[in-house]
């Protein structure tokens, strides 16, 4: 029992320190801020209303980017962090430390949640101030924003952890996940109404969580009248909950064994790398 509280305490401490390092790291911070700035610029640039409604297009775009940035934190930022820390030996060191792996997971959850919520708050706040962006109206909308954000994160974070556990190294990792993510950004109805896309594309996009995250956030951020522009003519909130829950379950089913395996195999890959290095540098045997 004391072990468990200790892991929590160490994990929260660790998460706090990592957040501080993130805030101090100019390069990484500017990366996150650039995402928000790009989203704001695109949103400010588009004119007109969403076809068939009197909701400005800007609102749809901001809601879509809000969903995409959550998606990105889980499926790009998190796997990158995991792959890098695996390669550097952070995971191995924590494996060698009593209670280290649980603390590591606690710290990463804290980091991801703060990163996601911070990005979201910044985007919506700056959007409302600078581009007359959308904010939820009334407690019902806030509640929807809250649960869609939470469930959306739950749908992508374990999945991202699973990806981070299998990808080979930080260089290749980015290339491997960037392309499909960008593809989904364009096909999920995040930055323009999904109904503008051919039906087969819509159907494929509907399998993945991003479309549903964006749709859920639109229901929280846009006026109810805007739902006529949705593919189904309604927000389909039960479907949003269902799909995101399904991805959450799938994510956990994949992430738990894959993370275990990654932690277990850590020393194995290291050994091979070392042997290869030794062979290249001309081991003293020969």
């Amino acid at each position: 029992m004391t072990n468990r509280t200790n892991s929590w305490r160490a994990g929260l401490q660790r998460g706090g320190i990592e957040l501080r390092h993130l805030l101090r790291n100019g390069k990484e911070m500017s990366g996150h801020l650039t995402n928000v700035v790009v989203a704001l610029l695109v949103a400010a640039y588009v004119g007109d209303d969403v076809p068939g409604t009197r909701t400005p297009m800007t609102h749809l775009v901001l809601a879509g980017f809000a969903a995409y940035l959550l998606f990105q934190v889980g499926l790009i930022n998190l796997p990158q962090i995991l792959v890098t820390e695996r390669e550097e030996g952070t995971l191995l060191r924590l494996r060698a430390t009593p209670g280290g792996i649980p603390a590591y997971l606690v710290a990463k959850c804290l980091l991801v949640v703060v990163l996601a919520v911070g990005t979201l708050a910044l985007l919506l706040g700056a959007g409302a101030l600078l581009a007359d962006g959308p904010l939820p109206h009334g407690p019902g909308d806030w509640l929807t924003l809250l649960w869609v954000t939470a469930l959306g994160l739950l749908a992508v974070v374990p999945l991202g952890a699973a990806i981070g556990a299998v990808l080979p190294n930080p260089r290749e990792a980015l290339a491997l996940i960037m392309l499909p993510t960008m593809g989904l950004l364009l096909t999920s109805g995040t930055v323009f109404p999904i109904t503008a896309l051919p039906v087969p594309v819509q159907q494929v996009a509907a399998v993945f969580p991003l479309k549903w995250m964006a749709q859920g956030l639109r229901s929280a951020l846009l006026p109810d009248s805007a739902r006529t522009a949705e593919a189904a003519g309604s927000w389909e909130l039960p479907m949003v909950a269902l799909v995101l829950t399904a991805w959450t379950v799938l994510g956990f089913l994949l992430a738990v064994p894959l993370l275990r395996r990654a932690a277990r195999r850590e020393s194995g890959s290291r050994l091979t790398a070392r042997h290869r290095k030794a062979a290249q540098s001309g081991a003293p045997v020969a």
Partner: protein
Amino acid sequence: MTTLGRTDVQPVIRVRDLTMAYGDVDVLRGIDLDIHRGEVFALLGPNGAGKTTTVEILEGFRQRSGGEVSVLGTDPERGGDAWRARIGLVLQSWRDHRRWRVAELLTHFAAYYPDPRDPAELLTLVGLTDQGGRQVDRLSGGQRRRLDVALGIVGRPELLFLDEPTTGFDPQARHEFHVLVEQLARDEGVTVLLTTHDLAEAERLADGIAMLVGGRIRACGTPAELARRAAAQAEVRWTADDGTPRRERTEEPSRLVWELHRHADGPIADLEVRRPTLEDTYLHMVHGEADGTDGAAGTYRDADEKAPAA
């Protein structure tokens, strides 16, 4: 195997007939080890001899194929957090926590252990007091390694694993590191298992040495014992009447030389009697393995001639 006369207490590490195979490749072929409390023990061998595999099995990072292993009274495959807390590790290739500051990192890792060392005292012990506020990736190689040692002992481990601890060190850093390890063993009673391919390092630091070559322990004992055993068989070299160089190994070089003289009835050309050093023995084992012959079985061939070009 280490004959230090302390058989009354349970050894810290006890290994019997440890085997490890990856597919068809036998990496470890039946290893026995006893390492006692407070001992500095060196696992000496060339790269690829199975040192890292052995140590990773003892650390609980790798499942063995067969044999019995007990570390601090527990099978490493079943060691939980309480067991982990009694063990410290310093591995070769850690490059983690680059963004952290030195003191911050030590203080954080102290939080995982029930009775940690004081981080400030620890910094003094490893000679990093001035670097406490520095970012980890700004440390030199030697400083980084000393930080790794500090992280390895922050939880007051009873047993410390050091994997090739001084690879890439300059002589000064190496010396300082040796002093630190001696201090830990002498003053704090920490049992240390270090792997190295450097015989001089093993002789300098270790109370016991096991030479691991080709997945087998070829020799085991105190440095003095090993040196004595190595010198027991002298090598006699001379040039025969037909001009061919000859060599022979014997425990009684004097008798051999006497018989040579009687046989030749006069002086022997290029006669030389050598007592091999521990280093000769070690190199011979290593090269014997590289040639695919069993060096320990006494089929002595000259390492210098047979060694493949590096």
